[in-house]
């Protein structure tokens, strides 16, 4: 039997959730035995080369690029998992959500203390190569269907491990109290 295929992505996140995935220490060797990695920053595979069983999404969606990647993952993965607070609820990037995007951009490029007076052109970057910003940072499940959620900032290595093994083996996932945390 072929090994289940795993893909991962970081959208509007800090890569901390991926670091936590690596934090499963020597179990990473077990994981490599259990699964095959496809598209992921860990493998540097840029495009899906086959249909995957599980997709792990870190980070919410703050721009059009994030949305495309997320939709691509939805198309290519049977099971999609939001892992970490940013994927689940926007996380720290979503601090901007109550503020209109125009104000955010102006603060970042025109009026903020580090840019005021220095941005002579007065232009907010608008090259068409740059992804378009969304009006707010969206939790992933408010864009596509997400099957499972692993909270935490980052989710503990134990939670990630428990979840992955449960998904791979089809067993019930263990959720001891200390494993689910939002911070």
């Amino acid at each position, binding site marked *: 039997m072929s090994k289940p295929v795993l893909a991962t992505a970081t959208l509007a996140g800090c890569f901390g959730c991926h670091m936590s995935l690596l934090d499963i220490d020597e179990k990473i060797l077990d994981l490599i035995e259990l699964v095959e990695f496809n598209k992921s920053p860990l493998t540097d595979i840029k495009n899906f080369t086959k249909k995957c069983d599980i997709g792990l999404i870190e980070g919410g969606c703050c721009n059009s690029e994030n949305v495309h990647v997320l939709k691509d993952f939805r198309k290519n993965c049977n099971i999609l998992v939001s892992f970490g607070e940013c994927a689940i609820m926007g996380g720290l990037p979503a601090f901007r959500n109550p503020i209109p995007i125009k104000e955010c951009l102006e603060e970042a490029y025109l009026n903020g203390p580090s840019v005021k007076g220095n941005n002579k052109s007065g232009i907010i970057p608008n090259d068409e190569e740059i992804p378009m910003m969304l009006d707010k940072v969206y939790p992933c*499940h408010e864009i596509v269907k997400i099957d499972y959620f692993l909270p935490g900032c980052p989710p503990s290595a134990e939670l990630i491990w428990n979840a992955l093994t449960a998904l791979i083996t089809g067993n019930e996932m263990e959720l001891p109290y200390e494993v689910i945390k939002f911070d």
Partner: protein
Amino acid sequence: MADIINFTIDGKECVAEKGTLILQAVQENDIYIPTLCNYKGVKPQGSCRICTVRANDRLTTACTTPVGDGMEIENDTSEINDFRKSVIELLFVEGNHFCPACEMSGECELQALAYRFQMMVPRFTYQFPKREIDARHPKILKDQNRCIRCKRCIRTIKDEKGRSVFAFFGRGKNIEVNVDPVLGSKLTDKLAAKAVEVCPVGSILPREKGFRTPIGQRKFDHEPIGSEYKH
């Protein structure tokens, strides 16, 4: 001798003194009911609705309803627990609760309830409302993003003349708890500390202090909220 009455909780026979509120009666029988707007020593008001039980087939809040003789109370049922989980989820989406960046993470009752009820993600859409932080007062900060409008501060913190330091502002989804501009600036150390203490979340914070307890030693790091009750 006070009158003793009989009642059942999820089928279990229990006794209580007549006139006891359901919440207390249930707790005296070592059974847990989640609470949030309720605070020891303060008149209950039943606004968060999280302690809802089915008493004689009527939905009611345990913190405000006296237990009756022969009353049949449903507490730990899938229906009731789902109501409670829904309330927790509603509170998470109606405000801006960024746990990773909150000074009260690990000590917050709302977060602890979410842990206990295993909220992985709220079923409702996040609202991300625009809310302010009131930093005008010398001893406390009031962060409206995290306020769950439980009224615990409103009911507890009064000045020497009995005037409220905190009060509601507005109504409906935009309701907020405001700090009095005059009385807020005159808060004594004792009252300021009390205000911080009664707030179940990180909405009222002491100034110049924060993240005092290291992760791993915080109130809800190892044991779920309500662990003092056996069932």
